């Protein structure tokens, strides 16, 4: 206590850097410098797209990794945000498009995504394991067919086009570099929030509920309410990703939120690993790279087989995804090190 008062003002900044950690600082430097060395294609199609899908998978990983609830509906909540942008902002489809400014539309989109996620969460927290997956898969499927058939609100099959990222203070976020940085900021915020909150009181309660809901009830926690709140936060992250996704694509249609996309998010999360919030981003980079380049090599037909085989291999060798492989490798190196010292 006393030490705090006598500390010189430079120390808190140094403390903060120490708390962020060398690994994070190096990663941040690389990501910040990435536009210097990369083409526009690599900046958006690989960089931006990976960050967006990383956020979607992070939203799933928050529920699955910390809360033990596997959801296939995160893409649907991203879709809620995306359609909100299309309906309340501007679009080229001559339907709705209220033309509200981005700073109104964006919070609204996040709010709708988070509340719809909390609602689905509230319905599905009565179930466990495979049943949660089934319910959320049903939600994702129903959402897809609903928007495809509804023309008054969602413009059915074609969906909405002409959804553009805003120009703010003269910076055009449609341009590759600003768009990349916007995605980087959003992803970093989501990542840091999850990483920090995992050790918060709420984060601990969520993990404890995953480990033993019975004991949580017995020590006085409202298990259902805590789970629903977790779905709300997961919906916020999915919504943020959804807004970026429609700005990235310039459009949204039922295809954006179909079952294939829903499963894609799950695959990314599992390949990356659910144990740490960096996992979803690692998984996203892997899958986006494969999607972009493997298609040219093996063809679109065999591409899904390739992803499937890769997925199986990862799950088989490391249930904790690529992060788990990395952990195993570090352990083995540490053992070798010990042995060589003996």
């Amino acid at each position, binding site marked *: 206590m006393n030490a705090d008062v006598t500390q010189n003002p430079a120390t808190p900044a140094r403390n903060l850097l120490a708390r962020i950690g060398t690994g994070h600082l190096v990663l941040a430097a690389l990501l910040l410098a990435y536009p210097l060395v990369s083409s526009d294609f690599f900046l958006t199609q690989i960089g931006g797209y990976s960050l967006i899908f990383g956020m979607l998978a992070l939203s799933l990983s928050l529920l699955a990794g910390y809360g033990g609830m596997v959801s296939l509906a995160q893409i649907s909540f991203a879709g809620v945000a995306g359609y909100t942008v299309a309906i309340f902002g501007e679009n080229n489809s001559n339907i709705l498009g209220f033309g509200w400014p981005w700073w109104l539309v964006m919070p609204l989109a996040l709010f709708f995504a988070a509340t719809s996620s909390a609602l689905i969460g509230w319905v599905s927290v009565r179930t466990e394991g495979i049943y949660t997956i089934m319910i959320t898969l049903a939600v994702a499927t129903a959402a897809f067919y609903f928007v495809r058939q509804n023309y008054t609100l969602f413009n059915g099959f074609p969906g909405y086009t002409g959804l553009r990222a805003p120009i703010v203070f003269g910076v055009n976020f449609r341009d590759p570099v600003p768009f990349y940085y916007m995605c980087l900021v959003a992803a970093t915020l989501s990542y840091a929030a999850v990483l*920090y909150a995992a050790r*918060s009181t709420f984060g*601990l*309660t969520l993990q404890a509920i995953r480990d033993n809901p019975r*004991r949580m009830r017995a020590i006085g926690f*409202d298990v259902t309410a*805590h789970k629903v709140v977790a779905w709300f936060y997961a919906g916020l992250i999915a919504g943020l990703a959804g807004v970026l996704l429609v700005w990235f694509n310039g459009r949204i249609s039922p295809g954006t939120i179909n079952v294939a996309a829903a499963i894609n998010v799950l695959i990314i999360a599992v390949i990356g690993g659910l144990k740490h919030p960096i996992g979803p981003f690692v998984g996203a980079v892997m899958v986006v790279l494969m999607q972009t380049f493997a298609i040219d090599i093996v063809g679109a037909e065999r591409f899904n087989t390739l992803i499937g085989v890769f997925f199986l291999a990862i799950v088989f060798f490391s249930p904790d995804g690529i992060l788990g492989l990395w952990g195993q490798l570090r352990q083995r190196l540490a053992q070798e090190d010990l042995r060589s010292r003996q």
Partner: protein
Amino acid sequence: MTANVAASRLQDSGAYALELDSVARHFGALVALTGINMRIAAGERRAVLGSNGAGKTTLFNAITGDFLPTEGRIKFFGEDITDLPPHERIRRGLRRTYQISQLFGGLSVLDNIYLACRGVSRKRYSLIRPKPSDANRMQAESILHAVHLESVRDTPVSNLSHGQQRQLEIAMALGGAPRFILFDEPAAGLSPTERRDLIEILNALPAHIGYIIIEHDLDVALRVSEYVSMMHNGKLFKEGTPEEIENDPQVQEIYLGGGHG
């Protein structure tokens, strides 16, 4: 009869922590508990002994509200809690441990205890990390000390030995402001050294905290309790001081000769 013995012995101690009036619990046709009358004074330490399937855990479940009793009333410090949900009973200072440890395997020992302390406090949805000066955090540290687990403070619970998990199971019941604790076979599966440690932990609990301990091992029960209730086939059939119970021929026949582990 037996209830009267207990009542007269405790006449001068004033308030009862627990009063059970003809409590019964049926599972379909199975009568797991029947006609249970019990008076336990505040701060009293009672052992419940009985063979497997005698209904001891069911008795605990009835008191905590995990399974409501089929018949009878239960009072906690004079208040009728028979119809209260479990978390309301926790708010009033009732705690329990489980025969099979119910812990948070992915969290550290300290975080497990912290949550147990946090359960009855406010701001449980806080997205802020608890500071070391946080009241619940500080209580968790002192409980950690009380159950002799300082050396594994930051270890994930799934990496603990069985004995350490049993110690943590006790710690989980000490969070908040317990007034009365139900210990369900805390000594099960412990080594002799760990048993000694357990006896020490229980005997060091603040004097105002009363408890019931279910225990198969008579030696342990005798050293942590002032009074013993014997259960058999869902009934309480004998109460007495540890010495009386130990020397009772009926007890020796039914319980000690009953081939328990």
